[in-house]
Structure formats: structure tokens, C-alpha cells
């Protein structure tokens, strides 16, 4: 509810930050299907975010597409194919081996974006103009467009993603993933084909993060290899852990919180990484189960005495 009235209450800059936060939340939600529900820590989710963003940039540059819906459809397709390929290799392993493989594969993608500059624009990146939304042409005032129409578009996409993910994790399939997370051997011995389930989870996770990348591209206006670099994968891991990967809403809260922290840290000092790092270390030490884990813990304690 608060999110719906937000554009009328707070200034456009805040709305843009919030939009970035919601987009990050979609990505983190996808990422957490693997970490929180399947027990797989991916260090390569920038690959899918980047794939979604570059799909938009390529559609603009090479096919002159301007429709946001086509951007999203293209990103879903590309990130699904990419995550199927990556997943096919990665889900054969777990733990550190899985993490390293996802990291390595995402770095391959990053180096391609970096080196094939005649296709990708290299470090200069590719520009993404404001898209048409549901067939309606973009309005001239870019800030006005992004802070209102586009914000609501992202908010709707976010709501749909949250709903979809909620159903997925509470479906029999979602339960099976949690079973695999808790006890791989036993899951196998109640007749769950682990690799297949991990692969499906990997693909769903990749698609969600790809959608986040596609929504991010027009907002940022520029797609460059930065979205593919491994530190960005680290940020996705961090926002999820910060919010609490054991809860459904944890990654959402973590993503929004992280986006605000980062925005203000960057505005505050050139040594923003140092500041951000310190804040995050303190937060993680103080709240080992993440923001939502702590909230639940406190709520539980308040309930018990009564």
C-alpha cells in the first residue's frame, strides 16, 4: 500500500532509488530460490542479470525494439536458455564447487562483453532509451516518466514476481527443493531426482534475475560490463544474506535496504566501499540471521510470554 502511494509522497530521486531497490529485490528473490530453498550458493548471478540487461540493449541497438513487454519476453527467453546451459554444468556439483563454477561461467560472459566491443560497446556500454510501456509512447520528461509510469510498471512486475515465487516455494515442487536442501540422500530415497529439480530451480532463479536485469536497463539508461562482473554477483549474495535467506521476505527487505545503503554511501564519500563494507560487517555480526530473521526472532520472543 505504502509502495502504491509513494510517488505522491516522496521526491523523484527517492522513487528512483526505490525502483532500483524493487528491481534488486526481484533478482534477490530469484537468487534465494537457490540459496534459501535449494541450498545452493551461486556466485554467478550477475550473468543472468547481465543477460537480461544486455538482451534489452541488443534489442534496442540491433532490432530497433522499443516495447518494454518485448524486452521482458526477450530477457526471459535469453536468461532461460543461458541458465539452462549454465545449470546443466553447475548442478552436478554442490557447495564450493557449485559456487566456483557459477563464478567462472559468469566471468566468461563478462569477458565476452568486455572484449567483443564491436558488438557490446565494450566498457562504454550500450545506451537504452526510455521504452514504450503497454504500447504507450514514452513521454519527454525522462525523470517524470521514470518516477511515475516506470515506477508503477516495476512495482507491478515486482508484485507479480513475488506472487509467482510465493506459489513456487509453497508448491509441492518448492517443498521438494527444501527437502533436497535439508537432506540430499533422503530426498533421493523418497524418489526425488535431485539434479533435475536443482536444474529447474536454477532456471527459474536465472529467469527472475534476468527479468530484474531487463527492468534495470531502461532505468539506468546504459548497459555496461559492470553488471556482469563478479562483484555484482557478490552484491546479490550480500543483499540476500543481509535480509535473511531463511525467510521469504528476507531477500526483498535486504535488496531494498542494500540499495539505500549503497546509494547513500556513494553520495557520502568516495570511499563508499569502505563505509558500506563496515556497515555490512557490523550488520551481519549483529544480525546473523539477517534483518527478517531478527525481526521474526524478536516477534517470537514478544509472543512467548503472553
Amino acid at each position, binding site marked *: 500500500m505504502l509502495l502504491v502511494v509513494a510517488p505522491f509522497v516522496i521526491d523523484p530521486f527517492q522513487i528512483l532509488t526505490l525502483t532500483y531497490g524493487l528491481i534488486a529485490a526481484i533478482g534477490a528473490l530469484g537468487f534465494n530460490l537457490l540459496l534459501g530453498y535449494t541450498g545452493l550458493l551461486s556466485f554467478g548471478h550477475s550473468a543472468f542479470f547481465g543477460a537480461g540487461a544486455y538482451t534489452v540493449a541488443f534489442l534496442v541497438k540491433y532490432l530497433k525494439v522499443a516495447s518494454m513487454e518485448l524486452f521482458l519476453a526477450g530477457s526471459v527467453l535469453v536468461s532461460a536458455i543461458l541458465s539452462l546451459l549454465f545449470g546443466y554444468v553447475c548442478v552436478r556439483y554442490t557447495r564450493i564447487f557449485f559456487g566456483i563454477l557459477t563464478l567462472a561461467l559468469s566471468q566468461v560472459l563478462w569477458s565476452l562483453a568486455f572484449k567483443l566491443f564491436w558488438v557490446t560497446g565494450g566498457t562504454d556500454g550500450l545506451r537504452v532509451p526510455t521504452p514504450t510501456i503497454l504500447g504507450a509512447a514514452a513521454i519527454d520528461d525522462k525523470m517524470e516518466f521514470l518516477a511515475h509510469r516506470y515506477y508503477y510498471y516495476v512495482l507491478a512486475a515486482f508484485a507479480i514476481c513475488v506472487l509467482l515465487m510465493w*506459489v*513456487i516455494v*509453497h*508448491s*509441492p*515442487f*518448492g*517443498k*521438494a527443493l*527444501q*527437502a533436497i*536442501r*535439508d*537432506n540430499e*540422500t*533422503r*530426498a*533421493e*530415497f*523418497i*524418489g*526425488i*531426482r535431485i539434479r533435475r*529439480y536443482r536444474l*529447474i530451480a536454477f532456471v*527459474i532463479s536465472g529467469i527472475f534475475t534476468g527479468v530484474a536485469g531487463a527492468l534495470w536497463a531502461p532505468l539506468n539508461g546504459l548497459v555496461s560490463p559492470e553488471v556482469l562482473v563478479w562483484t555484482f554477483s557478490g552484491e546479490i549474495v550480500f543483499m540476500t544474506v543481509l535480509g535473511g535467506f531463511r525467510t521469504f521476505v528476507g531477500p526483498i527487505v535486504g535488496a531494498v535496504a542494500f540499495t539505500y545503503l549503497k546509494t547513500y554511501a556513494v553520495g557520502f564519500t568516495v570511499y563508499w566501499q569502505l563505509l558500506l563494507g563496515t556497515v555490512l560487517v557490523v550488520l551481519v555480526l549483529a544480525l546473523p540471521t539477517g534483518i527478517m530473521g531478527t525481526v521474526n526472532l524478536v516477534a517470537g520472543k514478544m509472543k512467548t510470554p503472553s
Partner: protein
Amino acid sequence: MDLLTTQALSISFGDNRAVDGVDFSVKQGEVLALIGSNGAGKTTLVNLISGLMPPDSGHIIFEDRNVTRQSSYERIKAGIARSFQIVNLFDQLSCADNVALSIFSREGKTLNLAALASRDRAVWEEAHDVLRRFGLDRTAMILAGAISHGERKLLDVAVAYALRPKLLFLDEPTSGVSTREKAPIMDIVSSIVRSGGITVVIIEHDMDIVFRYSERIVVMHQGSILADGTPDEIRQNDAVTTTLIGAHPSREPAFRSAGDAGG
């Protein structure tokens, strides 16, 4: 009729011939106990039959089909289920979820990601029914990681039972449980499997339990089958007495008291 037979089944770990040319059979509907000292190869035999690892040589025939090269998944679908010696549960899920997952899996519903699991009333009613029969209804909504050890042993069996197997292997269903708790657990397990018409193979160290609850006993020693017979035959078998009792003098009183209870 034999539900399962193994022919010259063997596996070695380095120089250790853990299972060495075992010809083993389980008859339809019987409750069979697999006994032997630690390292005799009981659990390894069950691991081979359930598909946890492939044998070096030999065959496994289940319901007249050779399942030796089948995956554990195919064997589960064919009707072979097992519980584990060290409790193997989904600790972060509720006890009801643990059992429901077996039911979802049995009915081929675990790939459904577009419906809420909690809406499937038939599955939940069955899950609660299974829990009730195992005396675990009180724990339905508690995480499996948070219940007592004895309850976890029961839940481990319940999860395998909910698959409605034809052949169920119970690997030490009462290990780590106090002597007083053992009989109640075995009473529950044995009455449920008998009423369900499930063929059961129990691996067990406690001779009281073995003689009281099984109809046939197979004794393993150093990877081979040493003896095979009714509880009475096994009790009077000299080779068994020497190897088992010789290895475990402390078992003798249990043996004698089992004789009283075994009739």
C-alpha cells in the same frame, strides 16, 4: 514366493570384501531380520539393494525383474524403500511436511510448481493419518529437527512407509534409543507394517528385538551369509552362537531372555 533375491552379490572397498557373493532372498509378506556383528556387511547389502551404490558383480532380482543396473529412483518407483541407521530427515520442514513429501513423490506430484502444496487435502489427510498411526500426531506441525530422538526414529520409518513400498528395509530402527523405548517403537512399527502387508527386512543388533519381532533370521559374518532360518533354528545354531556370542559376551543374557519372550 520370493519378492527379492540376490545372486552372488559382491562389493569390495579396497581389500575389504564387504559383501562377498551373497545369495539372499526375501519372501513375500515376511518380516526378516538381518543380523551380524558390526562390519558384517548388513548395511552395505541394503545399500546395494536399495541402489545407493552399484555392486561389483552379481544380480538383484525384484519381482522377477533384474534391477541391478536400475537407478535408486527406478527401484523406489518399483516399490523398494528404506529407512536409515543414522536418522535422515528434512530437519527444517515440519513432521507433516516430511511425510507429505513421500506422498507427493509417490503420486508424481513433486514437479507441480503452480499449486500450493497446502491445498492438496487428500495428501494432508493421508500424512496426518500416517503420523497418527505412528503416534506422532502431536508433532505434525513441529520441525523434524526439533523432536526427540525416539520420535525421529519413528518419523524416519514413517517417511519410508508413506511411499507405500512393497519391500521396506529398516536399518536399525531402534539404534540410539533407550532400552525402555525400544519395545514401544518396535510394537508400533511391526503392527503398522503387518497390517499394511508390507514385506520388511530389519537390520538390528538387539537380540531381544530380533527374536521377538522377526519370522526369519539371516545372519551375516564378514560379508557372507552364515546362517538362515527361523528364530528357533538360529538360536540352536552352533556357528551363530560361536561367532555372535563369542564376539559379544554381553549379549548372552539378552539371548536367554529373548528365548522366553520369543515363543
